[in-house]
């Protein structure tokens, strides 16, 4: 009812991913000493970005065919 949660979920994670990627790319590398030298902002940002894009696309595809029951694949929850 109301909304397809995948749309706000997708947008939120796209924005979070973008924020982290941008910050990760621009921030001082010495910041990442505490995270074992891994630029977690950049890498995890990319993961969130991909997840967000996936959710966004799924919600748009469901909206494009409104007559079918949006029987969402369970794989989207993992």
């Amino acid at each position, binding site marked *: 009812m*109301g*909304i397809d949660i995948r749309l706000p979920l997708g947008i939120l994670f796209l924005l979070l991913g973008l924020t*982290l990627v941008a910050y990760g790319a621009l921030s001082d590398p010495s910041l*990442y000493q505490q995270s074992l030298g891994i630029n977690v902002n950049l890498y995890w940002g990319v993961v969130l970005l991909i997840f967000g894009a996936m959710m966004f696309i799924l919600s748009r595809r469901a909206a494009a065919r409104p007559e079918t029951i949006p029987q969402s694949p369970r794989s989207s929850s993992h």
Partner: protein
Amino acid sequence: MTGIDWLILGLYFAFVLGIGVALKGSMKTSTDFFLAGRAIPAWVCGLAFMSANLGAQEVIGMGASGAKYGIATSHFYWIGAIPAMVFVGIFMMPFYYGSRARSVPEYLRLRFDEKTRGLNAISFAIMTIFSSGISMYAIAKLIQTLHVFDGVFQRLGLNRAWIFDFAIIISAIVVLVYTFLGGLSSAIYNEVLQFFLIVAGFLPLSYLGLKNVGGWSGLKAALGPSYTHSWAGLRYANTNRLGVEWFGLVMGLGFVLSFGYWCTDFLVVQRAMAAKSMSAARRTPLIGAFPKMLFPFLVILPGLIAIALPTQPAIPPHARVVVSAEPPGKGIIPLKVDATSGQPMLDKDGKPQLDYDLAVPSMLLHYFPPGMLGLGLTALLASFMSGMAGNVTAFNTVWTYDIYQSYIRPGATDAHYLWMGRASTVFGIAFSIAAAYMANRFNNIMDMLQLVFAFVNAPLFATFLLGMFWKRTTGHAAFTGLLAGTAAAAIHHGLTLPAGAVFGIKGGWLAVTHTYPSEMAQNFWTAIYAWSTCFVVTIIVSLITRAPEESKLVGLVYSLTPKPEEEPLAWYARPASLAIMVLAGTVLLNIIFW
């Protein structure tokens, strides 16, 4: 917290509130508000089913237990949740959903009688208020301890003593706004958002921590076998860290407490009642069980890593906090400090105690740079909100349908009950805030209340089990059984004591006839006694009271209800297939971490 962290937190708040606003227009009837119009897809309900239970206390508490007891904490998931989630989905949901009851107490009204419903509804309503208050208190305390707002407060020239109040008010207002506007739908949709945020915030933490200690084998080497085996020492209570033997664990936690919670607590069952079809309702707990099975790796593992790391100052310099010259704790877990004296608290042997509740927060501060730190703290806040919204939506439904509509004002218009739902959301949260302050001022009262709640909850599953699967069970029997079970729990608690405790709140207030090796063992056995007493008393009273009319029990009792029709679903998506998959996965995990 730096600017980037605030940005991430702000983004999250904007979306949470946005969902509430977006749903505002579709709240036309009380069914929309309290039951989400019974129109939510199974996977959404499933994730909400799991996240409603995933409050901040769960995240913090499971990490703390991980640091204290090791991987055996995962029993709370693998034994203490999965079997019950499968059971409620496969066997009980046909009656909850099929009876069209709008709440768990209402099911009791349909199956038994008014007094059983009243007992359950009133105790449940009080309990949800207090537990949401206690979790609000916990999160505010945590925010205060982590000094996350200190920088801002300093810059704005505000008194740092207000941080506790600020944290309580802000979190309460956000939850209030989105549940007020969008009711259960809003809570459920936000729980899905919160679920993914919690995963996003905690997964990298486990990864970095595990990498740092050299993987699972490194963790094993650093901590020794007592931390890294879940079953190996369970033959006797004194050979494992939990201090419980396998029978008490399996029966007390795995059967009585777990089934009592997952199968009868309206807070979680409500999420399945909102599903769009019988099949979706049955799949709800099963879908929730998949992430539940894997969550130990997100919430327990960081606790183990925190205790395994070399002892060092917990907080990195950039976090801009007051680093005091406290003596180090163990791993990165600091010592528990008395708030008034500033001295470390000592246990009964005179050794300083560790503040296990800070295991997970210390991990966040230890590994996460600005950016990820914002995401991690947002995840923590998200978990708190999903837990609180679960309480609030369950409270307003039980209050409106089972108390207000039943005893105070029956026969009003639907619009009136919708209005009451909104109003009770407001005063429910107001009461929670009061409870949070009560927890802050009078810790002992809260401990006692939680004890009483445990007594009330322990026998519940016996009543539901008999009610759903034995048509002879009568209303008088259910009511007497519940009271007898609660009394048995109280008496058992009054007669026993965990080793090393003094009598009083920990037990033994009647006489000490038995000493348990640990508090956990005592809790589990209290539950076992309560359940067994309720079970036996309910059967006996049923046999001596007049049998209920069978025609009234259709759809409420197993033997009188036609089998639910299977929707045409792919083989892997059917309830039975999901159940087998999740049970097989759980068995496998138990073997791996034996």
